[in-house]
């Protein structure tokens, strides 16, 4: 099975996932909107169907529908300076539409005040619109990557508080064995995903960022489900085969790059353009540091307590760690995956990932001699980006690092 065939499997599953949410609604089973941080493991364990408007926005972008929805939200006084995920998501909500039709209405919403400003306030607007209860997860900030016992205990308490809330909303009891199994499956999915990421160290890289951001769908929306483990096992097997055969995503790998921030969902062709120049994104921030940060830092679900495991995963999301951790992660990614240059997407829609990028560019230069290129846009609003201007500037950057390599 090649990368294109794997993509077809994923696309078919994505469609069935959204159909499953619609079916749940029809059958009267509970549907929750959540941020892309979840925690899906707990919700799936309690029989809740998870719906992530953020994920739906990325599909909207791929189908080139995001601009209209952003504009729709702006007519409701949502500022164009706010996160384009939120604007597009709210636009879909107000217009009762979306790339595969309007999302089913939620029975309740789980947001995260700790993650970023939109992850608290966007969901407040959605909860008000649908007139449904809102649960906001809170947690401490893992500034230096050293979680103290009382910080971990609070996170565990938040997860237990969520379980109580879900019981109250759905009438479904919390069953520890079900939860334990969902967390085990999530841990296995993450560990397998970590092995796939390791294989990207090979030259030529067997999987690039386009493939990996697609793979991430399972880690975000399906963590805690058997389907995610099965998918990653399949990808791992195929990727090992590719490595054995010496097959890369590029026929001739001229340059290896590190990419920082969320991809431009409406224009993933930028990675195709880079590939056409012989440049592969060998490692990236988005698939490795955000949801997968705990595992990237060497953590595993092995405490014996599913609440503790999940709490640790939560506290190591990139949204919850301080700049000292972010610096160490970017350095490690660029160094261990053999990157010769870095592209930092300064994302007007995501301050939490973009503030501190200049420090990361500085340390990459000072400690690894790696030069960086930066550009400004928004991940879900195509009005923010010009492909022509971008290629003109990146072309020059690639020449500079290629010449430096010689």
């Amino acid at each position, binding site marked *: 099975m090649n990368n294109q065939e794997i993509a077809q499997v994923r696309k078919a599953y994505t469609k069935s996932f959204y159909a499953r949410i619609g079916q749940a609604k029809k059958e009267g089973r509970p549907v929750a909107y959540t941020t892309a941080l979840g925690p899906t493991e707990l919700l799936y364990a309690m029989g809740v169907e998870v719906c992530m408007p953020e994920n739906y926005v990325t599909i909207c972008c791929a189908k080139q529908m995001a601009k209209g929805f952003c504009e729709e939200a702006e007519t*409701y*006084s*949502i*500022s164009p*300076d*706010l*996160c384009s995920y*939120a604007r597009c998501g709210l636009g879909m909500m107000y217009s009762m539409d979306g790339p595969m039709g309007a999302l089913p209405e939620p029975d309740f919403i789980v947001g995260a*005040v*700790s993650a*970023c*400003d*939109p992850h*608290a*306030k*966007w969901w*407040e*607007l959605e909860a*008000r619109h649908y007139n449904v209860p809102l649960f*906001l997860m*809170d*947690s*401490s*900030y893992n*500034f230096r990557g050293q979680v*103290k016992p*009382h*910080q971990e*205990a*609070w996170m*565990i*308490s*938040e997860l*237990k*508080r969520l379980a109580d809330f879900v019981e109250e909303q759905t009438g479904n009891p919390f069953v520890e064995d079900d939860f334990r199994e969902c967390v085990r499956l999530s841990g296995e999915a993450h560990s397998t995903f970590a092995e796939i990421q390791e294989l990207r160290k090979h030259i030529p890289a067997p999987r690039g960022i386009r493939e990996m951001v697609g793979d991430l769908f399972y880690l975000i929306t399906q963590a805690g489900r058997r389907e995610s483990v099965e998918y990653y096992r399949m990808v791992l097997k195929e990727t090992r085969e590719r490595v054995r055969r010496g097959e890369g995503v590029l026929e001739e790998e001229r340059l290896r790059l590190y990419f920082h921030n969320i991809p431009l969902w409406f224009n993933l062709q930028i990675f195709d353009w880079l590939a056409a120049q012989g440049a592969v994104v060998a490692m990236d921030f988005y698939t490795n540091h955000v949801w997968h940060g705990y595992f990237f830092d060497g953590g595993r679900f092995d405490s014996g307590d599913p609440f503790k495991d999940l709490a640790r995963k939560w506290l190591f999301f990139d949204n919850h760690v*301080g*700049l*000292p951790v*972010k*610096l160490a992660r970017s350095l490690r990614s660029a160094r261990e995956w053999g990157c010769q240059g870095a592209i930092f997407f*300064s994302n*007007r829609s995501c*301050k*939490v990932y*973009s*503030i*501190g*990028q*200049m*420090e990361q560019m500085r340390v990459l230069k000072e400690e690894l001699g790696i030069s960086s290129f930066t550009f*400004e846009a928004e991940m879900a609003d195509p009005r923010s980006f010009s492909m022509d201007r971008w290629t003109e500037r990146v072309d020059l950057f690639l020449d500079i690092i290629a010449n430096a390599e010689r």
Partner: protein
Amino acid sequence: MDFKDVLNEKHRWALQHKKEGRLVMGCYSAMLPEELMWSCGVLPVQFLMSPGPYDESLSYLPPYVCDCSKSILEDYMNGIYGYLDGLIVSHVCETIRGLAGILSVRWPERFVQVFTAPSGKDPGARSYLKAELMSLAERLQRLGAVSMTEERLEAAISVYNENRGLISEVYRVRGENPGAVEPEQVLSAVMSAGIMPRPQHNHMLREFLKTIRKDPDVTGTRIILSGLLFENEVVEGSNLFSILRENNAFVAWDDLASGMRYRLEHIECFQGGEPLDWLVESLMGPQPAPLRSSAERKAGQMLEAARTYGGEGVIFLVPKYCDPILFDIPTLTRILKENGYHALCLEMSGALSEGQMRTRVEAFLEMISGSPFKV
């Protein structure tokens, strides 16, 4: 010396405290355990905002962040806050957390803490917060602060509670008679609280209250302000205030981050608890910062103030790129409108410029004062 003088010499108190061999901690937001710091002999100093341009900060921050963060970094870069022993910021937005990260990397020798005051009031949050406060006290002690004792903390809470009571009294008196005191005076008084020792500030507030006329003797349009106003706008006299005065409009109440949004509820000294428990309770739950409070709650506070003090309309001063405020604006304006109050949103980047603002504020005042449906 009046409060404007305090703001004009904003580093004087901190430098004096430092000269006496005690610690000074830079703070951002009122959702911080200032009482605990004070009980350890540490002076908490709230960052006040300098006018731009913020050229130096642009080397470290993207352009699409608020002027507050740019101003703090600019002043750090220029050595203005060289006297600080560290900083503690409250998680009231993602930008301030990111800024704390940059400062910790640029100045690794200095103490930096991102403090989270939980939005919920549950046992898990309570235990966390108590442990976090004890840990903070220990860290401060390692930096050279005196140890926190129950007696010292109780005394600090008492001083800060008195301060809250006096500021609330200023707002009450001004609300009942908005013409008796200029808005700049009130805001100067509140802002000064963040940069000087509270015992002295309490003394100044008591004197200030004696100077405010209590008898109502003016009529005009009563306005509520919300959002954020920089210190230089207050000290140097914002164009906004002149426009209001020229149009016979008064500020009856405010919900400014630099004003009434200061944590004004008394810390309740309940039976059966220790002073640390009292502080924990006061720092938990919905907060004045929009990130950690619903728009409905904020709208409710504005409506209550409008009804109590006869407010007729709300002017929002919205800092550009302040996401928590921007997310709340559509809901706030809708709720106000549903209750018969008009609102005007002025987006701010740097100082408030006069031209367009004059046209918009005058039109707004004309609209609310001339409405036959006025509540």
